[in-house]
């Protein structure tokens, strides 16, 4: 048993000695310059993301795509970031696109109307295991949004697609009064830093009540009501 146990020790010791000898030789031999390695071609990784608006009457604000290696855009039960609040209350995605954690970002153009879809391309070099996050406001609401939160892409191969259905969330940053003064799309104020919701946290959205269902002060009608899911997101890795 002793012999068996000693063998690997001996081998390691010998290897270590020979390695150190080798390095010593290099240090003293200036003629042996390292060969310049050719720059490896960057691997272009590209995704096409198609978002279908499945609602009856909720325009989606410009859709934000972010590729990142860590972190999340939101966490249910926790307060929304100000960047997310801006999307959820007014559709303004400038802060979200500029997030430090974003390795790549892309924005859709204009509104994606009910029944319509928009395809957005996002590219990144050399990273095939990024997380994709998506966010867009349900435009005719106080602070409703939909999206994907850190969807891992490591398993998505070139030419493959995944289809996911997304729910409506409430940013918890503004009470769901539905009144004209508080809804940007109805002519009121969109983003306001004041957090007047009873609960300052992201949750599922309880839905739109509307003036047609007894909320007399609502600027919204039955058309803006929705149920889950509110969007379909198809992710295709094109290269």
């Amino acid at each position: 048993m002793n012999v068996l146990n000693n063998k690997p020790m001996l081998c390691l010791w010998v290897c270590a000695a020979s390695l150190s000898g080798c390095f010593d030789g290099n240090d003293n031999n200036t003629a042996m310059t390292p060969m310049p390695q050719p720059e490896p071609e960057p691997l272009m990784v590209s995704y096409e993301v198609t978002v279908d608006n499945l609602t009856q009457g909720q325009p989606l604000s410009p859709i934000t795509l972010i590729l990142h290696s860590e972190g999340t855009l939101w966490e249910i039960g926790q307060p929304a970031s100000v960047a997310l609040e801006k999307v959820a209350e007014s559709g303004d995605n400038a802060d979200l696109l500029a997030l430090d954690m974003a390795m790549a970002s892309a924005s859709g153009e204009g509104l994606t109307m009910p029944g319509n879809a928009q395809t957005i391309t996002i590219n990144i070099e050399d990273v095939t295991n990024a997380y994709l996050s998506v966010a867009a406001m349900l435009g005719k609401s106080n602070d409703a949004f939909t999206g994907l939160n850190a969807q891992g892409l490591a398993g998505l191969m070139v030419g493959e697609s995944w289809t996911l259905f997304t729910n409506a969330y409430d940013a918890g940053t503004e009470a769901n009064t539905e009144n004209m003064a508080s809804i940007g799309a109805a002519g009121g104020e969109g983003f306001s830093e004041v957090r007047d919701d009873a609960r300052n946290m992201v949750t599922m959205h309880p839905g739109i009540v509307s003036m047609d269902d007894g909320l007399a002060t609502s600027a919204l009608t039955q058309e803006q009501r929705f149920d889950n899911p509110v969007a379909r997101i198809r992710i295709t890795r094109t290269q």
Partner: protein
Amino acid sequence: MKYTLVALAGMSVLASTAQAADLDIQIQNISHGVYFAPLFISAHNQDMYLFKLGEAASPELQAMAEGGNIAGLAEMASAMGADSVENPAQGPMSPGMTVMTSLSTSEGNTWLSVTGMMVPTNDGFVGLNSWEIPTEAGSYEFYLQGYDAGTEANDEIRGSGAPGVPGLPVLPFFDAEVGQNGTGVTTTENNPVVHIHRGSIGDTDMQGGSSDLDSSRHRWLNPVAKVTVTVN
């Protein structure tokens, strides 16, 4: 002899899929404005269930759904040899709240079920019916719907949590959210079996109207809970 061999082979298959497990269970209330009464979490055998969609609620389920009382379900599960956790949050779960608990299951108890009353409702509950616990170690995430026990009319007005007695049970911690003097949304429940809850209506009148619930506060859209089960 042949039969014995077949029986033995069958038993070995059963044994390999019916092993004991150590589970960490996280359940989060993801609704915007509805509380969960004490949860009942149970790992049980294939013969037991807490509820079944499309079937009438048991008296034990009715007591849970109408009044948040899980004692009957716990007694039933215990009699069936289930491994259970009662009221892991040691009180109500407000929106956004997550409860974490551990559960060691005995051999054969490979099905996981959860129930908890949603308040304020007449007989709404969050539920999971017989999810097969994976044998492979890992973390499994899924979402739960809000169900209606089908045992009480959804009148949405103050009343009792006793089984068979109309109305919403109202506890001090959410009393201020619930209105008064509503005339009642309905007096009938035409679907007497367990089904997906249609949601609460509510109204905007805290001193009257048809409902004592608040239409801007007490509605929800499914799903209502997020579950993460880690099989160790």
